[in-house]
């Protein structure tokens, strides 16, 4: 190849894409490793080899019986592992969507109040009609509506405050605090009067996961992810402003509505499964941007992978800590806040200093 053709833009671009594909493949491998790790680690240790053999026998490739204890443990752990991955991915993709449509690098579903909105709606509906927890569709719709309502309130207040990036965050914190407060009061009623384990949801936890949860969140993630990927090209345009997107033939208003609905759906359903887990939607998109750049066509899949593996790994750590300390379940949401909040402060500092 001559020097000249190396400098050609299309050659460079192809090379860049190739590198990104490799990075996404690596992220996929990492996610798989974390998945295996999560199945193996816990109060009962199961070796990596056993986990792999069980997975292979499930797929019908080999014949292997791990014994009844192993089967039970893996069954429970499988639900929990899948839930952490899917919730992490959902929250990360939500983060990308909300950051790009608001053009605000500080935006995040938890900080904007979506999570506590979803939780509050869940509490209220459980108190009004406790049997609702039997219906997955109802749970999905209610938490979706809660997240959407909270986002709407936040954005309205932010507009009244002048619609700046910081006013959005301030409005979000206020709305979030209010809805979280209501949720906290109601959660006690739900837990002690109705005997539904709910308090852990305030802190964000996967201790009560069952297979139905996995089913719910895998549906919402699949739908949300496909929509996000479909509008990824448009998001590339929208980030440069409504007027820029418009001249490329897109309708920025419609695009924003789609993104907001998708974010609320992804976040709402994730919250109904795991409770309040913050900062994943903030930290993961930023790290993904560092790894693959700003093109949403690759940013969205890599954020999903990174979010899934990060939350799953955090949950592994939490489980190890819990069983070693003998304190019962520690909430993974707390760990995420410990990791995420300093990152938020760092972004805030960067923003305030211009």
């Amino acid at each position: 190849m001559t020097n000249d053709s190396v400098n050609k833009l299309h050659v460079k671009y192809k090379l860049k894409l190739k590198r990104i594909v490799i990075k996404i493949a690596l992220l996929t491998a990492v996610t798989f490793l974390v998945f295996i790790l999560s199945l193996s680690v816990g109060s009962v240790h199961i070796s990596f080899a056993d986990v792999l053999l069980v997975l292979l026998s499930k797929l019908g490739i080999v014949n292997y019986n791990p014994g009844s204890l192993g089967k039970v443990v893996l069954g429970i752990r499988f639900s929990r592992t899948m839930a952490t991955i899917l919730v992490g991915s959902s929250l990360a993709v939500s983060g990308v969507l909300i950051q790009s449509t608001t053009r605000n690098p500080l935006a995040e579903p938890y900080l904007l109040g979506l999570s506590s909105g979803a939780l509050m709606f869940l509490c209220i509906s459980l108190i009004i009609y406790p049997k609702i927890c039997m219906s997955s569709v109802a749970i999905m719709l209610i938490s979706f509506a809660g997240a959407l309502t909270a986002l709407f309130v936040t954005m309205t207040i932010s507009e009244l405050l002048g619609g700046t990036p910081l006013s959005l965050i301030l409005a979000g914190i206020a709305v979030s605090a209010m809805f979280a407060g209501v949720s906290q009061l109601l959660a006690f009623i739900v837990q002690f009067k109705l005997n539904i384990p709910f308090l852990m949801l305030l802190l964000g936890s996967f201790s009560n996961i069952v297979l139905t949860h996995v089913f719910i969140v895998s549906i919402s993630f699949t739908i949300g992810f496909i929509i996000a990927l479909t509008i990824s090209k448009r998001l590339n345009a929208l980030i440069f402003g409504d007027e820029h997107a418009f001249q490329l033939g897109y309708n920025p208003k419609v695009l924003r509505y789609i993104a907001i609905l998708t974010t609320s759906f992804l976040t709402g359903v994730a919250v109904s499964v795991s409770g309040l887990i913050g900062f994943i939607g903030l930290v993961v998109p930023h790290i993904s941007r560092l790894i693959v750049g700003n093109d949403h066509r690759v940013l969205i899949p890599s954020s999903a992978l990174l979010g899934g593996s990060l939350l799953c790994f955090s949950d592994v750590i939490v489980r190890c800590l819990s069983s070693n300390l003998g304190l019962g379940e520690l909430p993974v949401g707390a760990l995420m806040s410990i990791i995420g909040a300093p990152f938020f402060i760092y972004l805030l500092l960067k923003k305030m200093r211009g």
Partner: protein
Amino acid sequence: MVKIKILNLSFSYDSIEALKNVSIEFKEGEVVSIIGPNGAGKTTLLKCIAKLLKPKKGVIYLDGRDVWSISNKDLAKILTHSLFEVPKGFNLTVLDFLLTSRYPHFRGFWETRKDLDVVEEALTMVNAKHLAERRLEELSDGELQRIVMAKLIAHQAKVLLVDEPTVHLDLKYQLEILSMLRRISKINNTLTIMTLHDLRLASIFSDKLVLLHCGKIVATGAPHEVLTKENIAKTYGVEVEVIKHRKAGLIIVPLNTLP
């Protein structure tokens, strides 16, 4: 053959009338500057043509069709403008920005080789190939304006609408950007409409001027027809001397503000 015909255009922001009964025609190959004092409605007129603002009254015809009857997708292939924002904190690069300008031209998920070649050619035309991987936030005003020019080229539209291409630029970059814009328009035979503050630069680089005042067209035509002592006094409220220079076009010397 691209032609824009504006008939009796009126626009108002809530209660403030920004454009009143504007009628004018432009055709391809022309470089037009819209001039006028602050708040005259220059950018509003540009936005109306770009279909970003819906006029209260009147019609804008693009090749005989009302722009509001043209779908956004079709319009995207014909018309481009320079309005955009760079959100802070995302580390968006020049290439992130320029590649979007190809979106009206391909329906698939990924750019083809041709799209990248067009972007590369555009960058070469504005001497900015070395800026391709740079972050937009760290570019100087002059560099950023060059990237905007590259974007207008890469979009391959027939109508270019440019808002204040020389704002924040020093003398050298002002000349560079405007001669670039004129060259692009002449090579591709586009219709270029820009808003400008500097009357002297407008007189050098435009084929046609439109002088706006309080939302009305006061004068239109070749620079020397529009930039007269009387017109400037009437619109800007400034007493000036207009000197014709052999090389530099019209030199407008402000003398006094008029009461």
